[in-house]
């Protein structure tokens, strides 16, 4: 299997990238780490006339910490983010999610922005970003804009980005230190590191008495896009997270889920997995929060 012939450009910066994208119309495609795009090219499911390699653009690399957010630039590799001290300290949910992403070989090339822009419904990075209310920055020849993660995923492999737009960074707003914060990430796949049949992410804050003051739960792999489980969040916030609360979370997650079936798992099976994983992710996040100094 060999890709159809294409042209290749490696622009030095973002302005040049945007100019090439604008010129190329729909025929130009960005390549970053290429860990999903290259299989699509060699299987000839994608046939762009031009590949624009943005992987070495300096302004698309790096992780920056500020008081109210952590920003990861689009071409930062998944391996680099996973090993990063700021990510581990400030974004433990993302760190947990990243350990499920592909294998060492693919994390070394695969990028944070590439996974988001690819919008696979089972992808872990998008799931963490959705739970953490991330904001995405993009650039095109017409200017820059910010997209809330809740508006970003449209359908499988389709995002709010236009063909001539380039994702430049993802910003994770800090959770205010209102108590002890913990996170959990759970996934079921046929083999480890395969695509998730279902994956669940949770981050929560507990006050001194163990009452949940804030919670975010997202679920991926079950439907067309990752989803926030607002009904479960609303049911859990304001209470303690004992066995009763976990049972409620499991039931609500199953009942409210629009799951789809395929050769790997039926919709009913995915719903059952989803319920179990949501309860486990919440329990993992709770235990992580309780382990924090009060």
């Amino acid at each position, binding site marked *: 299997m*060999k890709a159809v*012939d294409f042209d*290749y450009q490696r622009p030095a910066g973002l302005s040049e990238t945007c100019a090439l994208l604008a010129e190329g119309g729909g025929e130009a495609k960005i390549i970053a780490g290429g860990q999903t795009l*290259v*299989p699509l090219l*060699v299987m000839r499911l994608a046939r762009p006339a031009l590949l624009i390699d943005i992987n070495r653009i300096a302004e698309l690399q790096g992780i920056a910490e500020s008081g109210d957010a952590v920003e990861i630039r689009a071409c930062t590799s998944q391996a680099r983010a996973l090993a990063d001290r700021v990510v581990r300290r400030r974004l433990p949910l993302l760190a947990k999610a990243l350990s499920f992403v592909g*294998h*060492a070989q*693919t994390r070394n*090339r695969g990028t944070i922005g590439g996974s988001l822009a690819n919008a696979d419904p089972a992808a872990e990075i998008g799931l963490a970003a959705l739970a953490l209310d991330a904001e995405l920055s993009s650039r095109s020849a017409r200017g820059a804009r910010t997209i809330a993660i809740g508006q970003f995923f449209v359908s499988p492999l389709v995002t709010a980005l236009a063909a001539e737009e380039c994702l430049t960074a993802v910003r994770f707003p800090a959770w205010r230190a209102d108590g002890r914060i913990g996170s959990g990430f759970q996934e079921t796949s046929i083999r480890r590191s395969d695509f998730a049949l279902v994956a669940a992410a949770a981050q929560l804050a507990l006050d001194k008495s163990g009452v949940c003051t804030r919670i975010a739960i997202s679920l991926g792999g079950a439907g067309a896009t990752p989803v926030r489980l607002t009904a479960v969040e609303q049911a859990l916030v304001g209470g303690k997270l004992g066995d009763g609360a976990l049972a409620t979370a499991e039931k609500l997650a199953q009942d409210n889920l629009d799951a789809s079936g395929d050769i790997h798992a039926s919709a009913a099976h995915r719903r059952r997995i989803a319920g179990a994983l949501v309860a486990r992710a919440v329990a993992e996040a709770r235990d992580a929060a309780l382990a924090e100094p009060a």
Partner: protein
Amino acid sequence: MSQHPVTLTVNGETRSADVPARLTLVDFLRETLNLTGTHAGCEHGVCGACTVLMDGEPVRSCLLFAVQADGAQIVTVEGLAPDAEGLSVLQDSFCEVHALQCGFCTPGMLIAAHALLTRNPDPSDADIREAIGGNLCRCTGYKQIVEAVALAARRLRGANEPAPRERSHGG
């Protein structure tokens, strides 16, 4: 067909060529440079047989076009041995415990394990399994491969210990 000049370092040697953009790194290594030690298996990033080191880190050379690797340092399985005749400690350990049968996955396994041992001289079995998790083997059931990597790690750690003092004769 769009042609692009590339220059990269492969196993310590500088290699230059004009390549079509669509030529993958694995095809460049095997067909342009005749380094056929790197195996092309699934050619879409599933099996790991084509794993090489790029700037010190394991990557799948079928998921990379040669033009993207312009300027990179590549190490293939041919670059692991200390000389043309010999084997590295890791390669020898694979022979020692029969960690290969058909041998198709072996180059990728060796590179992935080599990368692990470079940064972790004392890996647990779980570390080893994680490091070769992206490499499929259809013969061994993986057990001997994990044993071989653990054996190589032990041998390599031993190599860094001071030699035992010679026993004195006759007191």
